[in-house]
């Protein structure tokens, strides 16, 4: 007979009643997702750590903020995380020289590799370039790319987290990908001969 794994909703109820084991289980189950989402959104492990702490403090203080009828606990935690990350980024903006967030995607990024224009990068370089390119995306595209690409959420799940329509997620994801490719192409990580989505289409 295998022991049943309690659901998130059950653990939240137990936690509300003062069960610290339930809280510890919830924390260990979800803290990685929360931390990595904050890390990819902010690019700072310090911010990710602070945000993770804040998110679970909110769960401790206001467990009734989570409504199982509206979606899973992880979606709720992602939503709280997103709000806190945006707050942190706004607060830090005057002090941190953020990279260009222009929508044309052509930024004077420090990762431009002029001597390797055809994307002959190593795996670690590509990882670094992709992470930096994500951080240069405008926030509305960045959050969709992080949720759908890096956290493998469906459009519907991302729409719940970001509280917007599925079509909005779809269009933002495509726009975010286009911006990412431009940045990576500018950095030499992608073959510049690869066409982007704006050039001619065939209607065969």
């Amino acid at each position: 007979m295998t022991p049943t794994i309690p659901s998130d909703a059950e653990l939240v109820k137990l936690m509300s009643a003062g069960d610290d084991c339930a809280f510890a289980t919830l924390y260990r189950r979800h803290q990685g997702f929360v931390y990595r989402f904050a890390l990819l959104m902010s690019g700072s492990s310090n911010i990710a750590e602070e945000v993770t702490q804040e998110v679970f403090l909110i769960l401790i203080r206001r467990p009734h903020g989570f409504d199982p009828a509206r979606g899973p606990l992880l979606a709720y935690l992602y939503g709280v995380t997103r709000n806190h990350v945006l707050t942190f980024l706004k607060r830090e903006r005057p002090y941190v020289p953020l990279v260009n967030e222009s929508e044309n995607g052509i930024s004077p990024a420090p990762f431009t590799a002029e001597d390797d224009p055809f994307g002959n990068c190593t795996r670690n370089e590509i990882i670094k370039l992709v992470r930096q390119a994500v951080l240069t995306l405008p926030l509305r595209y960045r959050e969709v790319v992080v949720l759908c690409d890096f956290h493998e959420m469906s459009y519907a799940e991302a729409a719940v987290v970001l509280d917007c329509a599925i079509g909005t997620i779809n269009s933002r994801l495509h726009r975010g990908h286009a911006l990412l490719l431009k940045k990576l192409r500018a950095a030499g990580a992608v073959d510049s001969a690869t066409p982007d989505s704006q050039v001619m289409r065939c209607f065969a």
Partner: protein
Amino acid sequence: MNCDEFELIVLALARNQLMDARVHDRRLAHADSCARCAGRLASERFLAAGTAAVVAQIAAEAAPVRVEAALLAAFHEHVRATAARTAMPGPIKVNNWSFWRPAAVAALLLIVISTMAVFWSSSNSLNQGNEELTGLYVPVDLPVPGVAAIEDRVESAYPLANSDQQDRRQQRVSRRKSNQAEVVSAFYPLMEGEDLDSSEIAQVVRVELPASALGVAGVSLGADISTVPVKADVALGYDGLARAVRFVR
């Protein structure tokens, strides 16, 4: 199949998501025949590979252990605080109108009822007092008409300045009402040549004294009753000296 249809599925193709095999083959066939869509698919595949590499790199990253320790401490503190709040009533939320509304209504009702009660009792007692006063000073046994005038002056020597005086007066009145059966004599001046009508009488004091003391007023009684207590009302002037006396039976 055209580029727009290909665009709808290019992300799924790049991520190698499960799909109908025939649709999959048709899309790939379109990419083979269309350079733009082939490039588009290659770009998305590159991006998918890049994100997968990033995901693999940060898969093991998590919040430091100290965060969990701090959160568990905060959780225990919160549980203690919650238990304390449930044990003791919390502070009144002064901004909560739902709390104040019934209290305000109750206070208003209390004020209205109190005001009505005060008006009712004061008007009632004044009427009753006036009736009693007029009834009291109907001369029962007052051989000298001037004595009644003195008594009136004595009773009204202090105006009804406040409710305490009014209460005391009402007590006196009610006491006298209970003694309506008693008979009083006229006031006799204690000083020779004293004009009681023109004298200022401040207070009348009911005293009980031995009959032998009546000799001061020039009343001589037999020795057999000299020790019998006699009730008398002594009229005092503003200087505190007795001006007149009357006897009560």
